[in-house]
């Protein structure tokens, strides 16, 4: 909802808002320049003294004005011609011709009315309103993204465009909100919607009829400091009934030209004072520094427009295109999708078009943002849900369970839940099971029992489809061939082989970086941005299902590296093990945000065994700032499968690695990495108490053993792996 409120004003008003922001930024320079060039009035100088100096230089002076920048301008009428000049308040001498700056006037007219008069003023006010909505919703989105208002300035991750958008936004948001609010106020004032009319002193009943009082004998002028002056208008020559009119920051007064007496005074109203302050802050006239700050903030707007548009387009491209997707309000059947990498969307598209052939209007939507009110005609819901990690909601289903739990009542139209997962993982379809369980608990009727699809099996899906068709009374044939993610050819640069002697043939494969398009760079897609711990999906020949390997390198390293152990009869590992430099594989990138070292400077405890060293080595290589790192590495025999042995030596020397503790399971004193942890219990416990972060990578058994060992080690300190996980200090990458 907030996102939609942010997106549409942004897209609709982007050109107008950019034009206003750029002209505003350009205008902000003028008051600062004027301020610097204007000679300041001496502190004790009175209006009377200043006026006397000017009158000495220009006997026919008619008016003296002080701009908010402090610049004094005098106007006179001599010998039938008008004159005006900027004057030096210290001497009353002319400093140069006065007159509005052409460029400034042009920019001002563009900025406030687009040269279109009142219609233009209304358009610019609408743009200011859009800017205000953008600032407010943007602030809410930044806070949501950062995880709370207190973490407003927390470091940003994500694609370049997203980072730029947020970084610029949170710096500029206050200035932009302020500029747009004050702009709206000024428009309201211009159109007379505010009671901020200038005060006018009541006309005196009669003047003395005399002329020629000395300026110094006029108490009001003598008491007013020149720095408070706005305007002093002299009486018209030859009109004895005319008066001096003095306008200051606080009000307006009248002075008799014959006696020097003050004949009237009116204070400015509170509204007028507010309007003047707002005018001064918005334009920077009289507040040059604030004006420059606002101008700088405005400069961010065009960049935000570009990055925001890139984000919007990237988001649209990211979701698979669904042909013939019915509008939500007209849908008979609603398919809700919980997908992490996008493959579940493919199943949903197949299901949607197959069902649509029998007549009903089918709407496919993400599970996130679930709101049954959007589907008034829905006769049935079908939920297709993958699982992230060990039971978490996948990306397109974030918040679904909370929303379902918070509904006043479950929808009346019945539901069918189908889980997608990998049977070899412990949390097989765990999220989908949670969904089905909660649906039942909330009294949401099911029209088909909960079912699962293993490893994107077309057979499983077709079988479930027949069951669905039977319930609906149709002959539903679901023929889904998973569309493999678009891979790109990666050429092998080099390979290093280990572990043959100990029966664990393992290879470090290094691939060349593929070329990256500008679009990928901006949107942070493809190989434009990755780091150690992200996943490389490899599409082996002969199978449409990708296999994932943890990356042992980041984009900055300039190559793509993975560590692969050859499994007996393994299709993908076999092909990789046989790969020669120069040959290519088809691969794509998948992010793994759950396995990151995080920024901070807290020590890292890295624990890995076998090929699990890969991403940990990548983290070490990236540890250029010398964050304290302790690596526990489990291997079979130091002589055979000491992966990254040489690099580890070098990293220890140049400060990227503090300690390396190895555990060899073969040889003289066989032990595992969890045994090594127990032996170093005091060190580990001390580090964790001090805020260290634990990262574990390797096989499932090893991870379980490590977790148990850490449980024992940390128990005396009242800590556990589960507690650390809850704090985000325990990350696992398990296969």
């Amino acid at each position: 909802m907030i996102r939609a409120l942010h997106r549409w004003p942004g897209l609709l008003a982007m050109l107008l808002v950019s034009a206003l922001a750029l002209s505003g930024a350009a205008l902000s320079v003028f008051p600062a320049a004027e301020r610097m060039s204007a000679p300041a009035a001496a502190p004790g100088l009175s209006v009377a003294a200043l006026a006397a100096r000017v009158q000495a230089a220009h006997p026919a002076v008619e008016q003296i004005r002080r701009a908010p920048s402090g610049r004094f301008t005098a106007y006179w009428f001599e010998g039938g011609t008008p004159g005006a000049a900027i004057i030096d308040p210290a001497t009353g001498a002319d400093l140069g011709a006065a007159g509005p700056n052409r460029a400034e006037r042009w920019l001002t007219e563009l900025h406030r009315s687009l040269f279109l008069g009142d219609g233009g003023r209304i358009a610019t006010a609408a743009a200011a309103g859009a800017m205000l909505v953008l600032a407010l919703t943007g602030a809410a989105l930044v806070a949501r993204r950062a995880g709370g208002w207190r973490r407003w300035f927390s470091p940003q991750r994500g694609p370049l465009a997203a980072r730029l958008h947020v970084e610029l936004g949170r710096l500029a948001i206050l200035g932009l909100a302020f500029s747009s609010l004050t702009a709206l106020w000024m428009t309201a004032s211009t159109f007379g919607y505010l009671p901020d009319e200038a005060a006018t002193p009541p006309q005196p009943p009669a003047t003395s009829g005399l002329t020629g009082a000395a300026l110094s004998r006029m108490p009001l002028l003598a008491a007013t400091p020149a720095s408070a002056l706005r305007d002093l208008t002299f009486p018209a020559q030859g009109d004895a009934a005319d008066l001096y009119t003095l306008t200051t920051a606080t009000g307006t007064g009248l002075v008799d030209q014959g006696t020097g007496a003050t004949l009237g005074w009116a204070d400015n109203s509170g509204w007028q004072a507010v309007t003047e302050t707002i005018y001064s802050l918005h334009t920077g006239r009289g507040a040059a520094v604030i004006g420059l700050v606002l101008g700088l903030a405005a400069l961010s707007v065009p960049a935000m427009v570009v990055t925001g548009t890139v984000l919007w387009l990237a988001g649209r491209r990211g979701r698979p295109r669904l042909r013939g997707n019915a509008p939500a309000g007209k849908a008979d059947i609603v398919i809700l999708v919980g997908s992490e990498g996008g493959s579940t969307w493919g199943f949903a598209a197949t299901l949607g078009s197959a069902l649509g052939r029998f007549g009903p209007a089918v709407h496919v939507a993400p599970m996130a943002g679930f709101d049954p009110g959007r589907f008034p005609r829905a006769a049935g819901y079908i939920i297709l849900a993958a699982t992230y990690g060990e039971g978490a909601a996948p990306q397109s289903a974030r918040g679904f369970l909370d929303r379902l739990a918070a509904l006043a009542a479950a929808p009346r139209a019945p539901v069918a839940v189908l889980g997608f997962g990998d049977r070899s993982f412990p949390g097989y379809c765990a999220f989908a099971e949670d969904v089905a369980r909660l649906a039942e608990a909330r009294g949401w009727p099911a029209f088909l029992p909960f079912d699962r699809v293993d490893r994107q099996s077309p057979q499983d899906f077709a079988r479930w489809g027949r069951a669905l068709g039977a319930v609906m009374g149709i002959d539903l044939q679901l023929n889904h061939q998973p569309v493999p993610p678009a891979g790109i050819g990666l050429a092998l640069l080099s390979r290093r082989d280990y572990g043959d002697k100990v029966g664990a043939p393992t290879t470090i494969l290094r691939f060349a970086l593929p070329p990256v398009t500008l679009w990928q760079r901006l949107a942070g897609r493809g190989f434009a941005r990755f780091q150690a711990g992200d996943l490389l999906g490899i599409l082996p020949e002969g199978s449409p299902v990708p296999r994932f390997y943890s990356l042992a390198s980041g984009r900055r390293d300039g190559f793509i590296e993975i560590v692969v152990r050859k499994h007996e009869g393994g299709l993908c590992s076999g092909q990789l093990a046989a790969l020669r430099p120069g040959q290519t594989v088809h691969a794509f990138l998948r992010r793994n945000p759950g396995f990151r070292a995080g920024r901070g400077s807290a020590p890292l405890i890295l624990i890995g065994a076998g090929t699990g060293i890969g991403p940990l080595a990548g983290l070490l290589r990236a540890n250029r700032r010398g964050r304290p790192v302790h690596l526990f590495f489990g291997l079979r025999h130091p002589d055979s499968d000491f992966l990254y042995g040489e690099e580890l030596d070098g990293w220890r020397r140049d400060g990227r690695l503090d300690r390396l503790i190895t555990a060899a399971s073969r040889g003289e004193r066989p032990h595992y990495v969890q045994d090594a942890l127990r032996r170093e219990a005091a060190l580990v416990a001390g580090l964790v108490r001090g805020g260290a972060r634990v990262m574990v990578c390797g096989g499932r058994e090893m991870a379980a053993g490590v977790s148990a060992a850490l449980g024992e080690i940390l128990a005396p300190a009242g800590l556990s792996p589960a507690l650390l996980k809850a704090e985000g200090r325990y990350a696992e990458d398990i296969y």
Partner: protein
Amino acid sequence: MNSRIALFALTTALTLPGLALARPVTLATRMAAYGGDGAYLAIYLTDAQGAYVRSLWLAGPRSKYHRHLSGWYRATGGDASQINGITGASVGAGKTLEVTVDLADALIDAGYVLHMDAAVEDMRESPDEVTVPLTSAGAGKAVRGRRYVADFSYHF
């Protein structure tokens, strides 16, 4: 390039001597290239003693800025009823303003004076930008304004 703004106004009946005999008077104003935004102009009539008689035209839509037409404002207090139906857009630099008003014959050659006040944003106010006696002899003769008006004339 001068665009011509032709405006016609028929003023309502006024309690003035010789009301029965009135004639249309065209007031023509050509602005100088003073290099600023559109000017606010007030054209009004005073009697021989300088006392305000009536307003003839006010160019400039926003009443909040009318106080900058200081001579007119002092005479009327900004009274909106004085300019009811006789207002129009402000007049840009180099542009012309032509309006026709009905004036009683008794006002002509009787010491009455036409005044024009002018004001421009961020520039000096100019009360009595133009003052010219309303006489038969003066009709059709252009007079210069002080700052913003290149020339002003009236025609019967």
